């Protein structure tokens, strides 16, 4: 029920699939299905959610950058819940991406926080976010703004 970070070890199956699809040259993590929720009125912060699939070797997502025309600051954040059920949100230095594994940035878990939005995010709006991985370097992912997951 609680949406949390899910590290799904798809292992061999996924590796076989990606190798078949990309001819084996797959050192770079893939980022797909990136979206952000339409802003509510007065909401000055937003979140980008994305599915990251690891390449042949483990890597770490160390930075994310949205265009400054969208948000003045972009940070990697995690929402966590303590034993009493209080949900806290804070910046994290990096997100581990295991080789061949999938990391979901989704509501209630990891997300890319857009701080000081320049304007409300509108449904249908599109922008790119550059994800920087420690080893693989920059990966640009298109983000779509919509109401729901």
């Amino acid at each position, binding site marked *: *029920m*609680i949406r949390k970070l899910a590290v799904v070890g798809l292992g061999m199956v996924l590796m076989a699939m990606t190798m078949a699809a990309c001819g084996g040259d797959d050192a770079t993590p893939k980022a797909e299905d990136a979206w952000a929720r339409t802003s509510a*009125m*007065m*909401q000055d912060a937003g979140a980008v959610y994305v599915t990251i699939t690891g390449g042949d070797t483990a890597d770490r997502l160390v930075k994310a950058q949205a265009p400054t025309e969208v948000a003045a600051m972009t940070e990697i954040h995690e929402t966590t819940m303590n034993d*009493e059920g*209080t*949900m806290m949100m804070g910046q994290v230095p990096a997100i581990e991406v295991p080789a061949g594994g999938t990391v979901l940035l989704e509501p*209630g878990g990891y997300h890319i926080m857009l701080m000081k939005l320049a304007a409300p995010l509108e449904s249908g709006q599109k922008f790119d976010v550059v994800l920087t991985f420690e080893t693989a370097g920059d990966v640009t992912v298109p983000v779509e703004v919509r109401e729901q997951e």
Partner: protein
Amino acid sequence: MRLRAALCATAIFVLVLAACGGEEAGPAGIVRDPAPEMAALSLPDAANANAEFAFKADPGQLLVVYFGYTSCPDVCPTTLADVRSALEDMGDDAQYVDLAMITVDPDRDDGERLTAYVQSFVADSHALRTDDPDELWAVAEPFGAFYEVGTADDGTVEVGHTAFLYGIDDAGLLQLQWAFGTEPEDLRGDFTLLVNRAKENRG
């Protein structure tokens, strides 16, 4: 031992009955038993010229309450969008559900801001805020809600809060609460259950 066996048998019997006999599945939310009485509590409603808003649904209706803040990028918009989605799926019955959001961050959420925020999810919903921390806590405690607002080393404001939705009936009893991540379909099912119960009680 014999007592325990008997209890166990009874429990299994009840479970089987519940599984096989009931026409109506239990709620997806967490049942508050005994249901806390909230009707005597109130907060000013910034969406209604700061008139006191009592925690009690209108007759035959359901009141859904949420503690949050507008600078919340992840949890609050997710939950409120799920409420909106559940209400959209309820069709005409959505008119019997009222939403009230209480800000846990009144320093940054003024009345105008809070009203615009919550009403952009659900029209006509209530924006409850007070500048008095004691008044806020006096309301939060019986709900079982908790929150803290602090400032990090880099100056950014950090807010922690319980992220439940609370369902209050027209007698002011807190019947159900829903954890973060409850699917909109489950919210819709429980909202409908409570609305139908409220309608039946009114004959």
